[in-house]
């Protein structure tokens, strides 16, 4: 009771990580093994023959019983060793971190773009409800929504690297190596993703703003002589933020989990493609590692959203 509430809260959330990670590791381990297909055969392909398969399987310790494999893996993970990828033999943990970086950069850029588009659009749509501005914004949002990202991505490439060739079609370079080129690579995928995200955020903003704008305290603010613009931003918008922040948290989660299609279209070396490739190759250590790492990330993102709730709305307490 005497502790600052946030300290207690953080502590309990961190403790909750233990069962989560245990559960996740267990589910991840067995789920991927439920799926038919064999990592060794996947690796060796059509040229696989029985000897090679057996040899590889034993060298990867895949011939041991599942519980034994699980415990061995868990033991290693606890010491920080996520094992090596079956495909290509890279160390899993650096592999995942290496893919997480580009994904995180893309995610943040996309979110920023989507918020820059969606929040003003949503607010305009809500405050000018049933006007051309509202219809226009909603129409655009739904277009963005019904346009799958592979289409949008390809169209953007056509537009900006072929018809008006100002940006590279795809690729990635670390911002530490060449920040400018990094940015030039970032623009199109971030736009693709940002547009898709902004559709949802815009609609959500509009809906909650409509709700909030009817509240009595809006009338109070107007009675104070606060100009409409400020009423909207400072009074209404702040009260509309909980669902928006929730949505952003969810989107952040989805983005950090990887956006396979965008990553594929733009050859962005992110966690999504890595994980999906690993799933298809039944690259057990990579899948397990990626799921664990994402689970931890999600717990932190949610923790962050919960903390943000309390900042937005003093009536919401921690826990």
């Amino acid at each position, binding site marked *: *009771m005497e502790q*600052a509430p946030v300290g207690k809260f953080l502590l309990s959330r961190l403790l909750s990580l233990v069962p989560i990670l245990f559960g996740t590791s267990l589910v991840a381990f067995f789920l991927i093994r439920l799926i038919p297909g064999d990592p060794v055969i996947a690796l060796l392909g059509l040229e696989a023959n029985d000897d090679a398969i057996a040899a590889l399987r034993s060298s990867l310790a895949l011939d041991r019983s599942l519980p034994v494999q699980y415990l061995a893996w868990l033991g290693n993970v606890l010491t920080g060793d996520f094992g090596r990828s079956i495909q290509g033999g890279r160390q899993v943990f650096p592999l995942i971190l290496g893919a997480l970086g580009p994904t995180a950069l893309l995610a943040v850029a996309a979110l920023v773009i989507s918020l820059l588009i969606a929040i003003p659009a949503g607010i305009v749509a809500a405050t000018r409800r049933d006007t051309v501005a509202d219809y226009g914004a909603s129409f655009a949002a739904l277009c963005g929504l019904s346009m799958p990202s592979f289409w949008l991505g390809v169209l953007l490439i056509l537009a900006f690297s072929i018809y008006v060739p100002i940006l590279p079609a795809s690729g990635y370079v670390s911002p530490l190596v060449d920040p400018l080129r990094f940015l030039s690579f970032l623009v199109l995928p971030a736009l693709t993703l940002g547009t898709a995200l902004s559709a949802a955020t815009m609609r959500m903003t509009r809906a909650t703003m409509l709700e909030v704008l009817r509240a009595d305290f809006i009338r109070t603010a107007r009675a104070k002589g606060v100009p409409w613009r400020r009423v909207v931003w400072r009074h209404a918008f702040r009260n509309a933020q909980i669902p928006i922040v929730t949505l952003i948290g969810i989107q952040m989660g989805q983005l950090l989990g990887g956006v396979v299609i965008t990553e594929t279209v733009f050859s962005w070396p992110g966690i999504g493609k890595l994980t999906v490739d690993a799933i298809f190759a039944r690259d057990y250590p990579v899948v397990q590692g990626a799921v664990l790492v994402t689970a931890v990330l999600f717990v932190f993102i949610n923790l962050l959203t919960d903390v943000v709730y309390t900042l937005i709305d003093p009536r919401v307490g921690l826990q």
Partner: protein
Amino acid sequence: MTAPLLEVRNLTKTYRTGGGLFGRERAAHVVDDVSFVIEKGATFGLVGESGSGKTTIGRLVLRLVEANGGSLLLDGEEIGEKSDAEMRRLRQRMQIIFQDPFASLDPRVKVGEAIAAPIRLHRLRPRRDVRDRVVELLELVGLGAHQADRFPHEFSGGQRQRIAIARALAVEPELIVCDEAVSALDLSIQAQVINLLADLRDRLGVSYLFISHDMAVIRHVATHVGVLYAGRLVETGEAKEVFGNPRHPYTRMLLAASPSPVPGDARQRQAIAGEPPSPYERAPGCRFASRCPSAIDACRSEQPPLSTFSRGSHQAACIRAEEFDRLTLLSDEEARMSPAYRLRIDLLRRARAESRAT
């Protein structure tokens, strides 16, 4: 001897407010060691300064907020420890009319439905009679059947308050906490509602915890009174005792400050100087000492217990309680009104009596 309907013992409530996310918590002592009883068919009037904890006590009694200490006995049975499911059953016996009727009505539920739902929940009427009952309740509080199909935001403040009253009455409780239940009503509707509550009391033995700022109303309805100051009861007893012979300086000032509906009369209304103590700090001594004209040094060193003055059930928490003179309040206002006024009121009464008779 049978147990009283409600007995409240040593009730205490402390709110903790964190100063922001990383700030230190502060404790506000909002209700402090409050005890009182409400007999069946009695009306316990709770008065006190705004912010003194009246609403909080009302909510504590229904366990809508959990107390930090003390016990609540309903019919002699401890309810402070009851499980949620048991509490739900008990809630049919106790009701609350919230101070802010608008906030306590679901904006998406038509008022007829809001009143009907608890009737159905507690199976108080056969299904087909529910609608009639709703109309009956609405009419009891001066609304019409046509209003059942409207939403709360379509009502005026006073109308909402009446809806809240009708909803509370719908469950036919034995105890009703009325938190400023009639304050937003015009006088004639207020009269109608007070008559209704009195009628329920007389016919069915309903009891009330009646919270109000309006001394005239309290005087009219309360059998017992408790005076709350900064979370503590400073005076309590039978209404006529407390009003007739107030012993705590705060009670006396409260009564003296009551306005009178006679123009020119009220100009002597006296405000109490100073401000109540902060709930965040607890100084020793009587809480009222800082504002009390009769305070002496002893008042500032020790908190006087509620029984300092005790005659029968009349108690006051003031070490000088015995010393004060009787307080004579101006009585009948009507007598001080103009002849024309009295004549017309008299005409009205006679005309009403006449029309009722026919």
